[in-house]
């Protein structure tokens, strides 16, 4: 075996550290912006941008209570599973101009399964904590997972189907295909409308996936006082807080990969000439900007504009309207392809 054969193992061992650092720091920065901008929308001043960092530091100083009747190892490992899964998800996603670290070693289906893990970990933690409120919260989390995975799956399969028609030689589920061939130029007017509907559905699904305001039935503060996270204190809660921050980065990157995989460098390359690393920096900053805009739309605007849905309204929303919208988008894209516009 040559040196090349060991490269994926080396990537798998060292890349998580860098990506975890990036995900945590930028996730917390996005959380800070979210709180500041939400405060401004409500005519308040809001906390300083580094407030989430303070929150995490404080949470790691607090006592870590494990309830009497809880199952300690499941209770304590739930935040670790959640956080680990999100760091792993970053490995399969393209970060701005950089290709996914493990892009050649796992496709979108793998990513879809990894993304189901944080919710499942939260459920495990809720059920294992022996609190009635947490059990209700965990059950609601389960309902959330069942609800949003359906439209998400339709979106992913629409994309994969379109790519399998457009590029029969490429792997349709590979994220590298997604990044290298944005779909917007390759569809007609019907397909364009379909993609727009898919984008809106994806944004709504993301809000549910990160568990924010209109869809935060799982940890509804005023109904079940914290839900699945109720019994978590100290470092466990701190790790869930971090996982929540990284989740926005992961889901935002997923949206960017699907819908906006454009880089500034390919646009500006004809006007300037800059060294390679400068272009990489510009593209990376552009990626951070895209991520910020998506976080602003998906988290901040949604949570300020809408109050919480009821459980049955969430199910109706995702299984009814979101699924219907994504199916309409799917048929539009199919029509567009078959019609050969």
């Amino acid at each position: 075996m040559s040196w090349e054969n060991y490269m994926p193992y080396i990537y798998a061992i060292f890349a998580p550290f860098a990506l975890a650092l990036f995900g945590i720091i930028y996730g917390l920065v996005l959380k800070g912006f979210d709180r500041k901008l939400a405060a401004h929308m409500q005519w308040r001043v809001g906390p300083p941008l580094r407030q989430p960092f303070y929150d995490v530091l404080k949470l790691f100083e607090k006592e870590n209570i494990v309830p009497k009747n809880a199952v300690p190892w499941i209770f304590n490992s739930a935040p670790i599973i959640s956080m680990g899964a999100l760091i792993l998800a970053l490995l399969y996603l393209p970060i701005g101009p950089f290709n996914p670290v493990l892009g050649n070693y796992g496709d979108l289906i793998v990513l879809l399964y990894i993304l189901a893990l944080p919710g499942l970990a939260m459920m495990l933690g809720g059920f294992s904590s022996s609190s009635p409120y947490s059990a209700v919260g965990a059950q609601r989390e389960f309902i959330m997972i069942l609800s949003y995975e359906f439209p998400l799956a339709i979106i992913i399969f629409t994309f994969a189907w379109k790519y399998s028609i457009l590029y029969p030689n490429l792997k349709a589920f590979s994220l590298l295909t997604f990044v290298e061939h944005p779909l917007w130029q390759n569809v007609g007017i019907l397909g364009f409308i379909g993609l727009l509907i898919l984008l809106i559905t994806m944004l709504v699904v993301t809000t549910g996936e990160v568990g924010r305001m209109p869809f935060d039935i799982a940890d509804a503060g005023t109904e079940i006082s914290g839900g699945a996270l109720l019994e978590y204190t100290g470092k466990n809660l701190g790790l869930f807080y971090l996982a929540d921050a990284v989740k926005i980065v992961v889901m935002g990157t997923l949206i960017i990969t699907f819908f906006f995989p454009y880089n500034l460098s390919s646009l500006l390359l004809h006007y300037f000439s800059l060294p390679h690393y400068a272009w990489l920096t510009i593209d990376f900053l552009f990626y951070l900007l895209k991520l910020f805009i998506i976080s602003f739309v998906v988290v901040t605007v949604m949570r300020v504009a809408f109050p919480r849905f009821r459980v049955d309204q969430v199910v109706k929303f995702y299984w009814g309207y979101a699924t219907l919208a994504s199916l309409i988008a799917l048929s539009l894209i199919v029509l567009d392809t078959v019609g050969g516009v």
Partner: protein
Amino acid sequence: MIHIETSSGYWYPIIMLIAFIISWLIAYLIWRRGEKSYKKNTEEDDVFFAGNPPPQGELAHIKGNNLGWGFVEALDGFYNGMKRMHNGIINDYVGWFIGILAFVLIIIILWGGAI
């Protein structure tokens, strides 16, 4: 390397496992930095129950049928139809069975068994 590869996707489980272990290790290292003490077997590690003494034994368990409430409530048209079908009369069940069997047979006869 062990892997699964089809015409549209691929998966290398061993690399994923290594990456997963490293990711969990990072999460564990972060988790370890926190304070770990608490006052065991005091009121502190009782579960929160709105300031009341926590329920014991069977009362503390939430039944699983709450899980379906959201779905039953949201898709009540569908569920009501299904409930009406399950009326407990054996003749109706056999009728459904024979009807669907006839439907499948007709399809098989029309397409000649090849789809």
